[in-house]
């Protein structure tokens, strides 16, 4: 509790104020009881006003004003030493002015009372002799002569702590004015006897007290950076280095670069001569252990102990350039360590380390950092699948789905499963993604709802819970759910449109099927034969139905009508068998084929090539958001074995199937596809025609132009070099549009 200073007990006003200020600090006073800056400003303003009136012709009015000010100051709470000094100064000045005013207007008694209180408050107070009348000065001097004496204390050693009536006392600069009377003087210093004696200060005289202290033990002086370390000697706790260092101590060495106020000291007395173990301990820092030999009774100031932070090292191997690293959600900057590898130096703790780089993906792991230990991490960036939440009241079903999803995705191994169920629903709810709304949409198989802007949803995820693909599950029932709708969308720059999957919670294969969509790659090459093989009930094996001019099959000598009966000596009955066998061969490797041509059986060597392929986005097992994320990652990686234009073609194909026709048009117009290749210019022209056709009725003429171009290339293919022919498709679309 704050003790309010009282004019009635003004005898020890300053002392009380100071003591009071110290208590306030200790007791952590509630704020509402402190004197606010506004109150101080108001008081000082009133003081200035009264001072101005004092110096005017209406000086008499100032007496009352200073009186009010004194009344106001009396109960004012002070909370710090600074406030106490401020209070003391204002009170002394107010008393002084009122005394002068009262004296000038003949109220000598009032003046005398005020000066007495003033000297009790501030025995060393001196009036400005240039301003004050000689009569008042005489009065003041006589009163001071009668009330105030001087005290000087000379302690040996000089750094001993002197306490007078419980208050620290410093007479190093000469005798100090005090009220005449008796005082209890105490001196203390580690390693010396404690002295205490009663002294009597007479008014108008100077009392010099000598305090020769007798050394009783050696003293260990310990200074630490930072302050606050606990010191033990021989296992006995001696205190903490919480005190500020002595003003006359000059740091040297490494301690000199540390801020002085961060260094604390501790004097430890009472130690016997001989060896002592010293232990300095501070949480978060490595413990210092040392040994000192005390040979004689003197002070032993040790070199300042700069405590070292406890830290372990986490090495991040294969971290990509420009990746952002966080440790427990705090961004940290890897540095190149002594080993030349990027590393983090972290205080011991449990950490969730996350490395993220744009669309390349995310690497997340948990580590326990131990002091002075190194953890090697191989950063394997995987696209992040962010589970944004499972909406619906059936928490049993939700938990089951959540854990099932995590397990299924982790089994795939190519994705990082990022659980953001804690923040996801709160993030998405204001954007309209509520269970009821999504259930209704799911029931109708509708992706659009006026209250949902998927672009905003995508942007929110990218900003707050970034990943490559987002998944929000909605249970179809709040009580006992048997099914869940999975809303899946990709991060930018993919189209901000979701995929919708419904799965049965009891169906273990449903999650496996879902996971399969996360496991297939978009960058697989496909053997290029340059031939159309068909199955025929009238043939002994796959029949060569068509050959691409100059293609691998034709170069190998195959002819239309040939029936393939064996592949590397193994009988072949169907095209599927042939394809499987070919798929297991390295590209370009010569393979022996047995063929039947008419009635003749012959052998030849086939050297199939390999070509890129565009993913079949109409395959219902594919999830467009997943494809979009994979393509974006491949494009960002820049080191893909798949040509960039193929990746862009993939990107456009996904956008087409997602209904983002305008974006598909934009990408297709920029694709630099090679001319004269089966998978090339005609492919792009055809897809561009489809995108234009669907994007807006205004672009039908443009679509027609694209289809006409695509139709003019008889060898253009979709998906891959041996893929479906473009030309007949383009012709049909063109004819349906009324083109020629």
């Amino acid at each position, binding site marked *: 509790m704050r003790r309010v200073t009282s004019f009635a007990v003004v005898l020890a006003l300053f002392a009380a104020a100071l003591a009071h200020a110290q208590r306030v600090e200790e007791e952590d006073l509630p704020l509402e009881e402190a004197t606010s800056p506004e109150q101080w400003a108001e008081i000082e303003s009133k003081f200035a006003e009264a001072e101005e009136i004092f110096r005017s012709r209406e000086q008499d009015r100032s007496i009352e004003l200073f009186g009010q000010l004194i009344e106001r100051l009396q109960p004012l709470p002070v909370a710090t030493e600074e406030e106490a000094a401020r209070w003391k100064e204002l009170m002394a000045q107010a008393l002084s002015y009122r005394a002068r005013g009262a004296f000038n207007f003949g109220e000598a008694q009032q003046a005398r009372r005020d000066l007495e209180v003033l000297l009790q408050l501030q025995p060393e107070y001196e009036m400005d002799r240039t301003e004050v009348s000689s009569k008042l000065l005489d009065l003041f001097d006589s009163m001071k002569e009668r009330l105030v004496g001087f005290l000087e204390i000379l302690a040996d050693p000089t750094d001993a702590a002197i306490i007078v009536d419980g208050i620290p006392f410093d007479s190093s600069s000469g005798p100090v004015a005090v009220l005449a009377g008796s005082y209890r003087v105490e001196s203390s210093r580690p390693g010396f006897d404690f002295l205490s004696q009663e002294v009597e200060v007479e008014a108008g005289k100077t009392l010099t007290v000598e305090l020769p202290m007798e050394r009783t033990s050696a003293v260990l002086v310990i200074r630490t950076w930072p302050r606050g370390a606990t010191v033990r000697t021989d296992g006995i706790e001696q205190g903490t280095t919480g005190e500020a260092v002595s003003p006359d101590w000059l740091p040297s060495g490494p301690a000199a670069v540390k801020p002085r106020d961060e260094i604390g000291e501790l004097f430890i007395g009472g130690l016997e001569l001989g060896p002592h173990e010293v232990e300095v301990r501070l949480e978060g820092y490595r413990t210092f252990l040392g040994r000192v030999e005390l040979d004689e009774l003197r002070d032993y100031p040790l070199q300042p102990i700069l405590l070292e932070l406890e830290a372990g090292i986490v090495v991040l191997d294969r971290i990509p350039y420009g990746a952002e690293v966080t440790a427990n959600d705090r961004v940290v900057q890897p540095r190149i360590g002594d080993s030349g590898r990027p590393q983090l130096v972290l205080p011991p703790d449990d950490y969730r380390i996350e490395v993220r780089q744009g669309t390349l993906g995310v690497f997340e792991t948990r580590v326990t950092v131990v002091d002075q230990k190194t953890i090697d991490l191989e950063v394997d960036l995987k696209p992040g699948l962010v589970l944004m939440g499972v909406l619906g009241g059936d928490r049993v079903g939700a938990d089951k789905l959540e854990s099932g999803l995590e397990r299924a995705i982790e089994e795939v191994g190519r994705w990082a499963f990022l659980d953001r169920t804690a923040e996801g629903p709160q993030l998405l709810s204001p954007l309209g993604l509520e269970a009821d709304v999504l259930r209704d949409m799911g029931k109708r198989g509708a992706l659009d709802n006026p209250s949902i802007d998927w672009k905003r949803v995508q942007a929110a995820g990218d900003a707050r819970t970034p990943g490559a693909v987002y998944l929000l599950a909605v249970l179809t029932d709040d009580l006992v759910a048997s099914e869940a709708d999975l809303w899946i969308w990709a991060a930018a720059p993919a189209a901000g449109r979701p*995929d919708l999957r419904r799965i049965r919670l009891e169906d273990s294969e449903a999650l496996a099927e879902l996971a399969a969509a996360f496991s297939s790659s978009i960058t697989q090459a496909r053997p290029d034969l340059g031939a159309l093989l068909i199955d025929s009930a009238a043939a002994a094996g796959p029949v060569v139905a068509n050959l691409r001019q100059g293609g691998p099959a034709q170069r190998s000598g195959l002819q239309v009508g040939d029936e393939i009966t064996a592949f590397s000596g193994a009988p072949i009955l169907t095209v599927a068998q042939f394809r499987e066998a070919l798929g297991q061969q390295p590209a370009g490797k010569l393979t022996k084929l047995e063929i039947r041509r008419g009635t003749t059986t012959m052998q030849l060597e086939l050297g199939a090539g390999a070509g890129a392929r565009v993913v079949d986005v109409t395959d219902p097992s594919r999830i467009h958001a997943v494809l979009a994320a994979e393509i974006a990652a491949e494009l960002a990686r820049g080191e893909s074995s798949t040509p960039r234009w193929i990746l862009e073609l993939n990107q456009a194909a996904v956008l087409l199937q997602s209904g983002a026709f305008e974006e598909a048009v934009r990408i297709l117009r920029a694709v630099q596809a090679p001319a004269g290749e089966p998978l090339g210019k005609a492919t792009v022209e055809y897809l561009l025609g489809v995108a234009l056709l669907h994007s807006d009725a205004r672009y039908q003429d443009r679509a027609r132009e694209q289809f006409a171009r695509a139709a003019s290339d008889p060898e253009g293919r979709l998906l891959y070099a041996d893929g479906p022919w473009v030309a007949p498709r383009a012709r049909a679309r063109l004819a349906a549009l009324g083109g020629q």
Partner: protein
Amino acid sequence: MATMTKTIGIAVRAFVPSLVLLAAFALPALGQAADEGAAQRLMLEAQRFEQQGQVEDALEEYRVLISEFPQSSLAPTALLQSALLQAQRGETDRAFATAQRLIDGYGRDPAAAAAWVLQGELRQSTADTLIDLDEARGLFRRVPLLFLHSSFPGLAARSRALFRAGETSLLLGSLDEAAAAFIETIEDERALSWKGQARIELASIWLWQGDWAAAADVLQRVLEGTANSSSPQDRAIAHLARERLTLVHRLRIRPLAGQRPWSRAGQLGIPGLTLEGATGVAAHDDGRLLVVDDDEQVLLIDFEGRIDARVTWRGAEHPFFGFDGRAYVTVGDAAQSPGGARQPFTIGGEKPKTLDKLSAAQRGIFGDWIVADRSTGGIALFDRNGLFLRSAMADQLGEVGDMARDARGRLYLLDRKDRSVVITGPDGSRLARVSLAARKPEALAVDHLGNIYILDRGEGTITILADDGSPIALLGPTLPDGTELRAPRDLAVDGAGRLYIADAKLPYLLLVE
């Protein structure tokens, strides 16, 4: 339930004035939830009735749901189910009206897309003219326009509508438009259900348009995509694809490679099949065979070579498969289907005349009947119910000895007297006449490519012509295995281009492949 909720609301307001505001906000929501629950119960009940075959009860449950809870999310589904049940019961007009109610009341609900499709299918199934078919196509075409796949990506009804639009375009003779619709079904849609059939149809169009390599590519993909499926529908599609690929191999690739389309001939081995001189044979693209012999046995054989039906009908002859896929033979004055109803043919007018010397019959794309009778010239046309419509081409046809129909609904009439084949469109319009070099043309068949097979009884040969009359091949009189045709009476060609010859002097069917 709605009434109960209201009562609770009144009670709350009467006793707890401070809850008035809360009740005003909360109770409508509670009421909606209760309504949805009640609607759900009705839906489950209706579905249970449906499963038990209690159609009337199911319809009543749906009716209550629709009238009591029109705001329920289940109301559109209830309307659709009602319309489907009505359609199943043959209540075409009622089903159409129910579908219209769904479209009018819940136009943006995906069930409305299914309602458009149902309306189109009802129009298609009851079409009597090309105009009716065109109207059906218009209904199908609306679905992709109203239900964009960017908003409804997996909408099965749109996929179905596109397929049906292609199908009707095909019958209307708009091959490019049909191809475009099938391509959209395959490339732009995610729903799987119609992709297989769309690919088969697309391949057919390209075969007819001469782009057989692209067609073969599509068929091969269908085969590989369905070959390992256990679904009967997939298996049927795989079979069809394999048959068509074999046809392409036989009649396109082999000639290109300088090889003969047919290299073997022999007895068709069907377990349990014994014939007393085969007199008639018909083959369907899907592999089924219909055989008639001198003992007036009628045998239906499935695509796996098993006898599916065996009946004996006095006077049975001229087997054929109608456009509806059913097997028929002529029996006296009527067409009869094994296991089906008998359809007699009588020419109307002032002097009604029963046609009792039928020489050939077919069933067209509208379910209509085309009949040739030895006692009358030309052909007689009857509607789907056997009602006489008109006689046609009496002045253009001498004696119609046989007729066949191709997959596009075109009719091929063999004029024995004039030794020619007259080709008409599905609506009866004459398209072409192909003159034959045959001495005694006895029977004809048409394969999926539109090639015409003429059995010449006089020469004991089979001539194969393209639909423009250009010769492709000649078989006989000695077949590849050395068999000589002695009394050939009929021939058929299946989806793979296998030839089946009915010879009255042989106790089995001859197979040439």
